[in-house]
């Protein structure tokens, strides 16, 4: 997969159409230039292709292109450039036409995260993003695994299907994931709760590796993942795409479709995804019960009420069934020890099987969002977002009787968000944002599970206000901001006494966050950014009130009602060097210090139950420190070879107990070389190949040595090296454009285990997998 660090994201920021006078039916010309926004220099080697006629040209060294003898009519013109997302625009050609096209270039798009039109406090903070092409070419992956090759990002998993992202060592309720600007609910706890987001509905996924993100509540301690669709383009025709891929390992089928159309009254976009996988396979055996089935649908509507008022609506449903390795289901600690010692997991079957049995998860996540944006003046806007989410999670275990069809855990979580923002851009390129956010969360356990819930029923109400000011000076940009949140929790727990009783808790928390960040342009090609953020996260419900057996930790998990709010101070320093368009280097160092870091401590006590003795884990607080370094560099040789190197290093340290922090990602190194044909290849007069690419990549993950033997049931697995290969090309036919790819993951079919995958106690990770995909745009 080609995931570049410095992407040349071609955003069309301006298209000017100048019209000259003479018009004859098939004797018209389309001329134009393409220039780069930041440097004002012409962009060469931009492929310009008229879809309807099947003709294409390449811009010359002055950025010019020309089509002669074009007939009167409507055309779609496609612009593509090395390492870019292909863009398509619609023109109604009635006379000789000249197109002035200004593209925004890598450097500016990297440094400016513009969310909903306004520069904000994230602008100076380190960010990386994946574009539509990355998403389309990886439609066999979940939203988490799409991100796994980015620096500073890791995955915490339970098998191949269940994974959640870790950014700078933090995940779960310390990392905010925003889907369409709405905090993704259901991510508060559980290493085995994947974010229920269909990446295919998004056009861009951005990871902010910052010190604080004040515009978003949710108690994030620095980093944020933004999943965003783009605005529906002003195309009067119905357009869309169909994406299909087949993966050999797991015999998985992935199908996506997208339809969109613009009319002045209403623009719509519809996305649908179907996925089905059976058991995946290590180099030596099938992983029984590791399949998945997924069906998602989303609808996006946009309307301009007038020139100043915009409304959009987004609604999505995500439905998944995820198998959990049968051999990883255990009853007690000796079972775990038995399972750990085995060469091949219990319940391994000799043949492929695509049924999904217990233990499994069945999760539905529904989101509806309405956004109103009104420009009071050109430089002042008010935005109101209202959203509701329902996360319905059922986890099925292997149970006695016919209870395997009754979930062992069944949670319904409703979340309502309201978000009001006022933004004011000043003439000097300063901008001020003031906002208020409210989140109501209601979590109910279904009593039909017949099991006392691990996490009690609760309702929480959170309200926050924030303000950020971004200022631009000649060679520096500065951001300052603060945020205050109040949270009320109302908890109704069931005691384990005989008979059980209901016990109530009410909590109030006050959280305060602050941020300062600065980016200095040292020279034309170098910049230095620094950020400082203080943030607070109040203890979550599971940390306060968990009570019972948690299979995920093979122990009795006990909440701690005395927990205090966790405080974090994060500092980042980032250096960027772009001496030429063909070379870039980026280094990001960070340190985050925690006071009252909440963690799960294995106690010396063991608790005797009918299933034998279980260790007791209780939530404690300590002071901690996480620090690390993300390095990346990209170079382009002769416009046809792109090399990429990324390195992530991270250490987590429990200062209070003088021990390492557990579940911290080990260092990793990723490298790729892409060979790309710099011109299109004509197969016949009508069929041609563009962007023909061959990519070889390599991911090396070191052993996690920074852990003590008594901190885990099993020593961390050894280092591993995965090799991947990908071939891809665009195929232009007179009427259609296809994209084909074939890729191989774990090409050498090595056996390995990953430290952050809970399945590593029981089984190897997946072996060689080939994926072939086709994408048709119409």
């Amino acid at each position, binding site marked *: 997969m080609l995931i570049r660090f410095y992407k040349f994201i071609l955003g069309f920021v301006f298209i000017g159409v100048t019209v000259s006078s003479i018009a004859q039916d098939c004797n018209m010309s389309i001329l134009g230039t393409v220039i780069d926004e930041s440097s004002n220099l012409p962009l060469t080697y931009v492929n310009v292709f008229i879809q309807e006629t099947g003709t294409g040209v390449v811009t010359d060294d002055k950025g010019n292109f020309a089509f002669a003898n074009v007939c009167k009519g409507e055309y779609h013109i496609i612009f593509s450039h090395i390492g870019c997302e292909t863009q398509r625009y619609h023109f109604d050609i009635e006379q000789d036409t000249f197109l002035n096209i200004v593209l925004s270039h890598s450097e500016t798009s990297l440094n400016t995260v513009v969310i909903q039109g306004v520069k904000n406090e994230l602008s100076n903070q380190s960010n990386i993003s994946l574009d539509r092409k990355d998403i389309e070419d990886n439609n066999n992956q979940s939203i988490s695994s799409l991100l796994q090759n980015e620096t500073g990002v890791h995955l915490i998993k339970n098998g191949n299907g269940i994974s959640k992202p870790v950014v700078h060592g933090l995940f779960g309720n310390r990392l905010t994931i925003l889907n369409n600007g709405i905090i993704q609910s259901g991510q508060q706890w559980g290493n085995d709760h994947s974010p229920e987001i269909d990446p295919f509905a998004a056009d861009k996924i951005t990871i902010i590796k910052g010190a604080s993100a004040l515009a978003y509540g949710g108690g994030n301690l620095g980093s944020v993942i933004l999943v965003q669709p783009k605005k529906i383009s002003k195309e009067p025709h119905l357009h869309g795409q169909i994406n299909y891929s087949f993966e050999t390992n797991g015999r998985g089928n992935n199908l996506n479709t997208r339809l969109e159309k613009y009319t002045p009254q209403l623009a719509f976009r519809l996305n649908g995804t179907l996925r089905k996988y059976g058991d995946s396979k290590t180099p030596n055996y099938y992983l029984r019960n590791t399949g998945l089935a997924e069906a998602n649908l989303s609808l996006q509507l946009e309307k301009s009420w007038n020139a100043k008022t915009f409304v959009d609506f987004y609604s999505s449903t995500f439905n998944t069934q995820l198998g959990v390795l049968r051999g990883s289901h255990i009853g007690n600690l000796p079972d775990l020890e038995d399972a750990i010692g085995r060469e091949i997991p219990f319940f391994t079957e000799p043949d492929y099987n695509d049924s999904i049995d217990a233990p499994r998860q069945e999760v539905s996540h529904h989101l509806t969002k309405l956004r109103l944006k009104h420009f009071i003046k050109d430089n002042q806007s008010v935005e109101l977002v*209202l959203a509701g989410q329902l996360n319905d999670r059922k986890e099925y275990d*292997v149970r*006695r009787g016919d209870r395997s069809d009754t979930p062992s855990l069944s949670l319904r979580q409703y979340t309502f968000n309201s978000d009001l923002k006022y933004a004011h851009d000043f003439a000097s390129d300063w901008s001020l944002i003031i906002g208020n956010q409210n989140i109501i969360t209601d979590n109910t356990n279904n009593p039909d599970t017949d099991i006392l819930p691990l996490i009690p029923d609760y309702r929480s109400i959170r309200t926050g206000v924030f303000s950020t000011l971004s200022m631009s000076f000649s060679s520096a940009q500065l951001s300052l901001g603060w945020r205050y949140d109040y949270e*009320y929790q109302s908890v109704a727990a069931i005691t384990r006494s005989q008979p059980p009783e*209901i016990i109530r808790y009410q909590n109030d928390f006050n959280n305060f966050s602050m941020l300062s960040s600065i980016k200095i342009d040292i020279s034309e090609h170098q910049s230095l950014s620094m950020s400082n953020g203080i943030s607070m996260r109040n203890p979550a419900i599971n940390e306060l009130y968990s009570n019972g057996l948690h299979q995920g930790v093979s122990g009795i998990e006990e909440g701690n009602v005395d927990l205090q709010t966790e405080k974090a101070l994060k500092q980042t320093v980032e250096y960027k060097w772009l001496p030429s368009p063909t070379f870039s280097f980026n280094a990001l160092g960070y340190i985050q210090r925690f006071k009252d870091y909440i963690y799960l401590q294995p106690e010396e006590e063991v608790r005797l139950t009918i299933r034998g003795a279980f260790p007791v884990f209780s939530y404690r607080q300590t002071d901690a420190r996480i620090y690390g370094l993300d390095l990346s560099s990209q170079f382009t040789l002769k416009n046809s070879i792109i090399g990429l190197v990324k390195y992530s290093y991270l250490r987590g340290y429990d200062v209070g107990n003088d021990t390492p922090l557990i579940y911290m990602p080990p260092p990793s190194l990723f490298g790729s070389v892409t060979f790309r044909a710099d011109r299109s290849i004509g197969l016949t007069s009508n069929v041609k190949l563009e962007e023909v690419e061959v990519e070889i990549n390599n991911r090396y993950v070191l052993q996690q040595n920074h852990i003590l033997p008594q901190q885990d049931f099993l020593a961390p697995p050894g280092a591993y090296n995965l090799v991947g290969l990908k071939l891809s090309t665009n195929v232009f036919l007179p009427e259609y454009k296809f994209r084909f790819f074939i890729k191989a993951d774990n090409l050498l079919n090595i056996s390995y285990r990953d430290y952050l995958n809970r399945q590593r106690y029981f089984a190897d990770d997946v072996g060689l997998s080939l994926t072939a995909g086709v994408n048709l745009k119409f």
Partner: protein
Amino acid sequence: MFKNYRTVLLVVLGAVFFTSCDKDDPEIPNGEELITTVTYTMTPSGGGTDVVMSFRDLDGDGGDEPVIVGGTLAANTTYNGTLELLNEANDPTIDIAEEVSEEDIDHQFFFQTDITDLTVSYSDQDSQGNPLGISSTVVTGGTGSGQITIILRHEPNKSAAGVSDGMIDNAGGETDIEISFPVDVN
């Protein structure tokens, strides 16, 4: 124009603010699946008084410690053992052994001991001719003391090597019960 907004706003905000601040009382699950009580009754085959060992933990995982009653066996004696499994937290009491018998091919008890000369063997079978263990035979040898550990596995691989002889190593499955009784042989 703003009238349209207002309608939408009212509907959504209404849904949000008509909820109360506090969470309603949860419904308490029945917990029918829970096993609170295991009783192992050993009847001397030549007649005499039953030896009854028991494990009782009415509040399930966590909470109060279970109450365990061990037993004293006579040396060089054969006993017929019977296991009774109950959920006494439910009203009325549920006979879990009945559920286990109904799913006999998916269950097997294992008996382990550190007392030399003491053996426990199966005296019942499931519908496929493999051992189950609700009924067993205990044969004592010389005097000694130690433990008898009773393990119930759900979905074991009964055809794996040694499993039908009562060896647990290759059985797999989940442990539903694992309890140890202190035992003296006099």
